Structure formats: C-alpha cells, structure tokens
C-alpha cells in the first residue's frame, strides 16, 4: 500500500518538477525567441507602427502589403531567392563532401607533416575576415570570377570548420572497423567511400545544415564580390530597404521572414541528424 502511495507521490512530484521546468525554460526561451517574434510581427506592420513604445508584439492593424511588396517591387526578390538557393544548395552538397575527403586524410592516414598542416588549418580559422576581402577581390578579378557566383561558391567549398568537425567524428570511429576492412584487402579509398561516408551521414548532414545557414545569410562576401543585380542573393536584396535616412524595418522584416523559410525547412528536416551528428563528433576531442 505504502509502496504504491510512495510511487504515486514520486510521480506527482516528478510531474510537478517537470512542469515547473517547462515553464521556467519557456520563459527563458522567450528572450531568445523575441527577435524572431518581432521580425514576424513587424513584417505585418504599417511603417508608422514600427516604432511604437512599448513594442507591439501583435500588430493592432496587421497588413499583408509588405509581403506582397517585397515580392513585386524592386529588382526581383524571386530572382535573388533563386540565386541564394542555387549557391546554398551547391555548397550544402559540395562542402561536406570535400571536407569529409580531407578529414579522412587528417584522421585516418598517419603521415609525416599531417599534424603541421592541420595546425595551419586551425590558424586559418583564426584570421579575421575583414582584411581578406581586398586581397580576395584582387585575386578573383584576376581569376575572372569576380562578379560571378563562382566568387561565392569556390571559396565556400573549402571550410576549416567542416574539416575540423568531420575529423573529430572520424577519429571517434573505432580502429577495429577499418582494420577488418584492411584485412579484407580494401584500400583507403574503398574504406572511405564504402565505410566512412555511409557511417558519417549524421555529421555530414549536420554540417550541411550549418553550411546552408551560413551561405544563405552571407552578406559581406556577396556584397563585395557581386555587382550585377541579376546575380544578387537574398541578403543583398534586403539592402533595398536600407533607405538613405534609415531602415525601412517593416519591409526589411517581411523580406527577412521570407528568407527564414528555407532555413526552417532545412532545420526541421535535419533536426534528428543535428542531435546525432554533434554528439558523435564532439565526444572524442
């Protein structure tokens, strides 16, 4: 009797704690969520209602006009959207593959000079980007890829972060697995393509999602390296709403809201991979 009562009490207490935690976390998350709420709500506001205090979290008089205007006026937001999709998708597929290939070399083939090269990679990650724009510009212009999408795609294919992340994952794969394959007569290439790539689907997917988000939101590279309006990406399209005397917030937020959609789709499709991917890569430093 008592035991059942005990269990019941414990269960109720657990439920209470859990409910309390849920409320606590929900409140805490509101702070981080508030910019997104503001972004969406502002996209439905009239210009004159943007700057009211206190903030209107739900527009009193919501309008669709901003969303319609984003897609119909200016230089063609739809075209920017397609350009962004194209670049982001190419990189989402290309960057993880190239990174994985290198990561295998850095983690599974012991050879002289390997760790020195990897150290150099890590150092490259620490260089601030702002001073590299001009050197890159000079080089791209010389290579004839300035003002083409290649100026974003080619450099985007090679990332330190991706190599680092996937390398950590490969290092955590037990050596017994590849040794068994060696004994069967497989070489490094076969092990990589037939064993490691399928095994590392989660980490590849995770990195692909992160890379997609980066590319999608990349403003500065696109700004400096693209001149032709027909090549512009979504972040460049949003500049249209930076007026001479300030920001047209309601229009810009309508554009930003439209811009979030692909990120959310990619995130929700890959959410389970994110969990698996990170867990496997981060454990074995």
């Amino acid at each position, binding site marked *: 009797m008592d035991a059942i009562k005990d269990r019941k009490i414990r269960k109720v207490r657990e439920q209470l704690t859990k409910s309390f935690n849920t409320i606590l976390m929900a409140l805490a998350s509101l702070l981080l969520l508030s910019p997104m709420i503001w972004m969406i709500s502002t996209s439905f506001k*009239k210009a004159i209602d943007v*700057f009211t205090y206190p903030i209107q979290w739900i527009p009193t008089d919501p309008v669709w006009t901003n969303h319609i205007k984003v897609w119909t006026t200016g230089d063609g937001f739809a075209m920017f959207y397609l350009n962004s999709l194209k670049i982001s998708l190419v990189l989402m597929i290309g960057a993880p593959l190239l990174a994985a290939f290198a990561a295998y070399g850095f983690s599974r083939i012991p050879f002289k000079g390997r760790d020195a090269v990897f150290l150099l990679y890590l150092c490259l990650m620490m260089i601030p980007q702002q001073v590299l724009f001009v050197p890159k510009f000079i080089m791209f212009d010389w290579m*004839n*890829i300035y*003002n083409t999408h*290649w100026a974003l795609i080619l450099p985007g294919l090679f990332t330190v972060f991706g190599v680092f992340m996937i390398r950590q994952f490969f290092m955590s794969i037990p050596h017994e697995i590849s040794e068994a394959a060696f004994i069967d007569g497989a070489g490094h290439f076969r092990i990589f393509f037939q064993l490691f790539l399928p095994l590392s689907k989660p980490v590849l997917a995770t990195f692909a999602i992160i890379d997609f988000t980066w590319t999608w939101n990349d403003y500065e590279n696109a700004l400096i390296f693209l001149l032709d309006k027909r090549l512009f990406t979504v972040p460049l399209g949003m500049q249209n709403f930076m*007026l001479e005397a300030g920001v047209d917030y309601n229009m810009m937020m309508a554009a930003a809201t439209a811009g979030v959609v692909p990120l959310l789709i990619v995130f929700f499709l890959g959410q389970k991979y994110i969990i698996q991917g990170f867990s496997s890569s981060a454990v074995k430093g």
Partner: protein
Amino acid sequence: MKNRKWLAAGVAWSVVASLMLVGCSGNGNGNGNGGTEGPASSPSAKPGATANADPIKLTFWGAVPVENGPQTVVDNWNKENPDIQVEYVRFVNDEAGNLKLDTALVSSQPVDMYVSYDYSLYEKRVKAGNALDVGEFTDFGVEEKMGEGAALWKVDDKYYGVPTSKGPSFVWLNKDMLDAKGLPVPTEWGLDEFREYAAKLKDDNVWGLAQSDYYFNVPINGSMLKKSLTLTNPDGTSAFDNPLTVKTLQVYTDMMFTDKSLMPHTEQITSKPALDQMFVKGETAMLFSTNQVFRTTNNMAEYPRTFKVAAAPAPRVNKDQSDYINAGGLGDVISINPRTKHPEAAQKFIKWYADSGMLPMAAGGRVPASKDFPVDEAVALMFKGVEDTYDLDSIKRVMFGDLPLGLSRLDRKTGSEQQAIYDNVFSRKLTPEEGAKELARVHNANLKTSSQ
C-alpha cells in the same frame, strides 16, 4: 581494385580542377551582363525600337533606392534612347557600400557612371584616377550650368563630375505646434532662439527638437567655412577650437540635459529612432535634417498627418553672425569611370539627367541644380496633391532662397574621429571647452599626417 582506387581519387580531384577551370572561364563572355550566371532577364528591348540590334549598355551607380525615382529616370531614358540602354545599380551609401563601389571601380567590371555624395570620397576617387575630367566634353560647362557653387567640386581646378542637385539642410517645423504656442516661423535665428523654441515646444511625449545624427557639427562647421573649406586657420592649423564651437556644444548640452527638449545624443545613436517618422507622428515639433524628409512628409497614405509643415533655415550660432555658411549646396555628383567603353554615351546621359531627366527624383526632395531645369515643374511634382499640407511660403524661402550655402571638405577620418569627441561631450565626460580643444587636436593630428 587499383583502378577503382585511382578512379575515386580522380573524381575528387577533378571536382576541384573542373571547378577552377569553369571559374576561370566563368565570365569570359557577357561581361557586365551577369556573365553566364543567373536567370538572365533580357535587357528590356523596347518594341518599336528601330535601333541596331546591339545597343550600348551603361551601368549607373547611385545610392537612392530604386523605387524613389531612379527606376523611372532610367525607364524614361531607355524609352527615348533605344541605342543606349542604361541600368541603374543601387549601392548603400555607407562604409561597406562605398567600398563595394570603389572595388568595382578598380576592377575589370563595368561601372560606367556613379554618384558621389561626399567630397572626401569623391576626391579620393578622382585622385585614384577613377573619374574622367568632364571639362573635356566641350558642350557642357559645369559652372555655366550649375552656377558658381559648383566650384566646391573642383579638384586641382578641374571638374571630375557634374553636381546635379542642390539644397540646404534646414529645420522642419510642425506649424500647428508653433501656432499653438504663438511662435512665428523663424526666418533667421541663432542657437539661443533655437533653444528657446525647443524648450517652449516641448511637451509630454513631444520633443522640442530632433536632429539627424551629429548635426550639431552643422553650426560648428558653418561658422568656419568662410575661413576655409577645410576648416583651418590661415596658418594651416585646425580652426575648431573657437568660442562659437564652445557655445554650440554648450547650447546642445543644455538642450539635452537642462531643458530636456532634445533626446540625448548617445541615446539617439544607440536606439536609432526613425526621425522622419517621429516628425510626422508629432513626436517632435522641430526636425533639423535634410530635404530627404520629403519622401515621408509627402507620403500621406503611409504616414498620415494632420498638421502643416513649415521650414526654417538652419540656425546660426549667433543670430547676428555675418560670416555664417549654411550646410548644403550642390551635391549628387555624377562621374564617369575612365574604364568605360562609351564615354560619349555616358556624357550624353549625364547631360540629359542634369537638364531634365532627374525630374522623377524631385518627388523625393531632390532639387535639380541646372539652370536649364524646369524648376517649377520640379516643385509642382514635389508637392503634387499635398500642397495644402505645407506652408509653401516658408518652404520655398528656405529651399530656393539665397542663403549662402557650402559644404566642408573636412576629411572623412577627422570627421569620423571627431564623432567620439562629440559622444564624450554629450555624455558630459568633456566640458564644451575641453571638447572644442579635442576637436581641434584630432583635426590637427590628421592635418599633420596628410601634409607629410
């Protein structure tokens, strides 16, 4: 086995190799028309155009958003000139946007014409050889067209661009609020009167005055402009440390912290309120800004207002000051990139733009500078349908009056470094006297480096 191994490696390597190759040949053709990239929206070939199959294409870079006039301008031109098709490219007139333009100017990509909005950047572009001497075009005398005010844009005694618009910075007034307090629309005033107005107009939830970021440098610089465009003394040292600077800093400090009629400066720059909207919403009685506010005050649909808008000239430091120069004058200078393949076509466009083409820009408050321009038409367009909501007398007096106008040639670096000093003065970390000395100190330091 071995074959497959090398095949695999070959695949990965060829990805890189082919990407590089494609990249290198990427824009060999179609320079400036988007290379081989993107869904090429074919340049709008006008029906009925008898022109040759291959019209000249020009790109024209400016900082005015496409919808606020430029699109109509180039559409009009393209309709009339099927053989010269102009495309407008908008850049944001901030640091990154100007870097983008300057990058494009030195690249192999075509930027045929561009607008400079600030002397220091313009001069830099000229000195770097990125602007053609427009004096070489014989049928267009800049000064003859634009008046003597154009001289501001001379570099080494030559014009490397055509200033196209004119206008002063001035004070926008909510006439209804002035009337309610029995205050007349000022025709000339100094900072003391300015402060008095602000204090009287201030109310619950209404600021007496709002002004664009760092506009307190307008009276300060305006008091020195007559001496020299670079704001220096005859001996070449900085002229900033003078009683008028001290007074200006003092008056503004008092407005912010004693009268509380003006939002403290640091609060403004870090909360970035939309000043034009504050004005039309009646949250500030006066707004010291530029003619760009017309875009908002004219737009009654999005920014409905019930009050009349009037204008007053920018305040001098002292009302009786005789050597004061108002901030403003000729601006929006269009230059031609020496790398253009079609300088004559560009010249033709600029001439048309300055003489009549820029009319659609007037709706956004840009007053054409050319004497050949149908000014009445521009004014009519500017106030079309909303004439009744303005006190037109005062607006015309201020915008088209004969106030002495000018712009300083203070270098960008000094201007930028002085912002930190203004921040300190208006956080009351420096007294106005110390502030004036500091303004002069950073100016002198830069004068010294640039003379080396």
